[in-house]
Every structure is written in structure tokens, then in C-alpha cells.
């Protein structure tokens, strides 16, 4: 299947989900439809599709519905980094401000870094072919390798009132889960990930402190993801999920503008080598200096997969209940083979 048909299928899938959602919203216009939240209090959409900040899910339920009805949004996020571009688009619904369901498709064209690795492995393959060994399937094509991941999310608000309980410190609490399916199995194997699909669960606590116009969110996410799952789950030691801390702080400048910062802990599952498996033989580059050498001369000295925690600083605009625009400076550190992946992030959310 060539890339273009793949793209078309992905878009087709998104459109059918959209159509289903509009059908729901059509049926709902009989009275279930609701957009009664105060401006900006629906939050924005994070890269996994859940309601929250940009990289962290919050305890708030997405959309502008109150407990009196349902609402939803479509969202698109573009992150531009020196070596990668992330496109993330999806849909989410909020039901009675209690339950949230979301679907997002992440697509990450990897640019020149992987082209180099792709060329390198093609070269190695040619050499191995000459030795009568079957070819390596690294999942990296010589040009334009694109990582794709589908993220299905659900969140339930458990208790608490984030906004109006200004006279106590009890936050709004929600628990949620993501099921992430990364479609680039071969590439993830090459990079050393244990699994290409896995679930994550999280608990978030969110509270607005009105006297200081500030929102604080803390999240614990139980996961084994490498770069949110874009580089699969787990590593050479297996798929070990752990709790990771995430946090967001937002200051409301006015009723339609918020600024803030976020942090998400990541883990270092893949620090080590690329795994190149040939015909059952594990040509781990740590045990194979020749292959490692061959790859590193072709790709430069940075064959490290040390993963960094993610950070961002953002400004979000809410011109109306139908639109939010978030701009951020994302500091994602080392990603797979490339250090210093800091860049900009823009996210649009349309609510209906």
C-alpha cells in the first residue's frame, strides 16, 4: 500500500468519526446539547486528544457542556521541532461534564534524521545481501518515514468542583485512560521498543484559585510510553509501566486569555542501542561494534536514545466558545537520535 492511500484511509477514518459525532450533535439539538460552561473553563485539547493543557490531561471534562448536557470539539495540533513535525488531529465529546471520550490521530514525519538511518540500513542491507543474509527490516524507509499513532481516550470525573469551591482546597478529580496503537511496528523494533500498542491510565487533580486567577493541575500517569508512544512502549528490558508525574500551571490574564507552563516526566526505556534483528539474530549495536560503527559513521556521533522530560510554556486564546488557539514553546529535549528538540506548538480547538 503506498503512502497516499494510507493517508487517505486515515483521513477517511477521521471523517467517519466526525460524521458520527455530528449525527450525535444533531440528535442532541433536541435539548441535550449544552454550551453552558464559562468561557475558557473547558480547557484546550492535549496532543493525546484529552481535555487539558497541551501535553497533560486535566481533571476537567472537554467541551463547553455543564452537567446539563453534551458538547464536543475537534482539534488539530502542529508541533514544529528541528528534526520532526507532529500533526495531531482528532475529536472529543464531553457528556454531562462527567465523561469524556476522545480519538486522535498523531502523525510524525521524521525528516532528514531517519532518511540518513534509512540510507545507512539500505547500505548495510546491500552489504548483508552480498553475504547471503536476509535483509534487515528496520521500518525506516530511505526517505519520508512517518510514524502514525491512533489514540483512544476516556476520562471520568470522579468528584470535586474545580471552579466554584473557592472556600476549600478539594480539587476536581478525574481518572482516565488512553489506548494507543502505533502502526510502525518494524521501526519501533529497530529503535528498541518492546510494544507498539499499549494502554496508559492516569489520575488528574485540577483546581482554580480565583483570588490569584490561577489554575493548577497535577497528574499521575501509569505508562511505559517512549515519547508518548510515538516511539512505542517499554524497551529492551520489557514493558514496565510506572507512575510518572505531570503538572500544569495557568494564570488567567483575562476571561479569554491564559498563560502558563507544563511539565511531563518521561522515562529512559530506550537508552542504549538500536536493535537490528536479522533472521532471528539480534544484531544489537552494543554487542556489534562493527554495525554500530557503520551506522554512526553514516549518521554522526549522536546515536543515543536518552529521552528527556517534556516542558512547555504556552499562551491560550479563547475568542469565543467555538474556538481556542494555543501557542507554545515546546522543550522536548532529546528525541530518539536527535538532541535539542525545542520548537513551537500551535493548537486549534473548535467546539460545537
Amino acid at each position: 500500500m503506498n503512502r497516499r492511500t494510507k493517508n487517505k484511509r486515515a483521513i477517511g477514518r477521521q471523517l467517519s468519526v466526525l460524521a458520527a459525532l455530528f449525527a450525535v450533535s444533531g440528535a442532541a439539538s433536541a435539548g441535550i446539547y449544552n454550551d453552558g460552561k464559562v468561557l475558557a473553563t473547558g480547557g484546550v485539547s492535549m496532543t493525546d486528544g484529552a481535555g487539558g493543557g497541551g501535553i497533560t490531561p486535566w481533571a476537567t471534562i472537554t467541551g463547553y457542556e455543564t452537567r446539563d448536557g453534551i458538547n464536543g470539539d475537534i482539534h488539530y495540533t502542529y508541533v514544529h521541532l528541528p528534526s520532526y513535525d507532529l500533526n495531531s488531529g482528532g475529536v472529543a465529546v464531553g457528556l454531562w461534564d462527567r465523561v469524556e471520550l476522545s480519538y486522535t490521530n498523531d502523525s510524525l514525519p521524521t525528516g532528514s534524521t531517519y532518511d540518513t538511518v534509512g540510507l545507512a540500513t539500505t547500505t548495510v542491507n546491500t552489504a548483508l545481501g552480498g553475504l547471503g543474509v536476509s535483509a534487515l527490516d528496520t521500518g525506516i524507509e530511505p526517505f519520508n518515514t512517518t510514524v502514525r499513532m491512533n489514540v483512544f481516550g476516556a476520562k471520568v470525573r470522579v468528584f470535586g468542583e474545580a471552579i466554584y469551591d473557592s472556600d476549600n482546597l478539594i480539587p476536581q478529580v478525574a481518572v482516565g485512560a488512553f489506548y494507543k496503537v502505533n502502526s510502525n511496528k518494524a521501526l519501533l523494533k529497530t529503535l528498541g521498543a518492546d510494544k507498539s500498542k499499549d494502554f496508559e491510565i492516569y489520575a488528574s487533580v485540577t483546581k482554580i484559585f480565583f483570588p490569584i486567577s490561577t489554575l493548577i493541575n497535577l497528574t499521575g500517569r501509569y505508562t511505559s510510553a517512549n515519547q508518548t508512544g510515538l516511539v512505542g512502549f517499554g524497551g529492551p528490558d520489557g514493558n514496565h509501566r510506572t507512575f510518572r508525574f505531570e503538572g500544569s500551571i495557568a494564570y488567567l490574564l483575562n476571561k479569554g486569555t491564559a498563560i502558563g507552563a507544563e511539565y511531563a516526566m518521561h522515562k529512559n526505556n530506550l537508552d542504549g542501542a538500536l536493535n537490528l534483528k536479522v533472521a532471528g539474530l539480534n544484531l544489537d549495536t552494543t554487542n556489534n561494534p562493527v554495525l554500530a560503527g557503520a551506522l554512526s559513521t553514516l549518521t554522526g556521533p549522536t546515536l543515543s536514545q536518552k529521552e528527556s522530560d517534556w516542558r512547555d510554556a504556552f499562551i491560550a486564546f479563547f475568542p469565543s466558545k467555538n474556538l481556542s488557539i494555543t501557542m507554545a514553546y515546546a522543550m522536548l529535549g532529546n528525541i530518539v537520535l536527535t538532541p535539542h528538540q525545542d520548537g513551537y506548538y500551535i493548537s486549534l480547538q473548535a467546539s460545537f
Partner: protein
Amino acid sequence: MKISRLMFAGLASLCIAAPALAAETTETAPIPQEGVGTETYPGIPSDTIEKLGGPAGIKIIVDDLFYYILDDNRINQLFISHGKVERQKALNTELVQLVLGGHKQYEGASMSAAHGDLGITLTQFNAVVEDAYLAFEKARVPYSVANQIIAGLAPFERDIVTR
């Protein structure tokens, strides 16, 4: 390793504490004592009334609030049908001063007594909040000061919204 174990312990205790905490959030919000104000986290600064232009400034904001409420098709029918707008304006001017820690007597009903039978939804409550922000803007109240009033009145949501 240590952090994740700590987080797990935190989350586990949160889940155990959840029912108790949930019960607490349904507590009623009594009208605060004179000179004390609503106890919020963090507290409302003592100069907020001054920043709003004193009692006269607060009266103007409340008058504007009712102007926006009566213009707001989402909620105005309810206010018109009860026909007590002038009384509500006067009482709300007192109440706002009281929740901000002012020395002002409030001579009206408790929030549950005044609203308990009206079947007010959270959607309607939020509409009043949105109208309040319009009134703050009209009176050139800075957003950060406006949120002191919102903080002071917000706990009444538990008594006012009954559906």
C-alpha cells in the same frame, strides 16, 4: 522508583479519601459574618472593596450586572417573573461587600432559602457569572480584582444550583 511509589501511595489514599471529601463538597455556604468575608484559598485581599470604588462602586457594578441579566435571553424570564429586581440589586450590593470582608449588614434571605425552590441549573448560574464579567468590564474593573468577587460568591453555587 521512589517517586512512583510515592505517587501510587498518594493516589491510593486519594481514592480512599474520595467519598469523605465528596460529601464535604455538598456542604452549604452560609452568609459570612460581618468583617470576616468568605474564607477562600488564598484569602481575598483586604483592599478589594477599595479597589472596586467602595460601596458606591459596588452599587454601580451590581446595577450593571442586572442590566446585563435582564438583557440575557438565557435567564431574564426568571428574574422578570419574580419581579423583585430592585430588592435583589440592593441586597446584592450588601452581600458583595460582606463576602469581601466589609462591615455591612445583609438583610436578605440565605442563598438556599432565596433560590432553593427555583430549580436553577448550573448552566443558568454560569450565565449570571458571564454577565458579571460583562459588568466588571463595563466598570473597568481589572480581571484580577473581578475574580476576588467571584471567589467570594462562588461557594454559594452549592446552595443556588439545585438541579
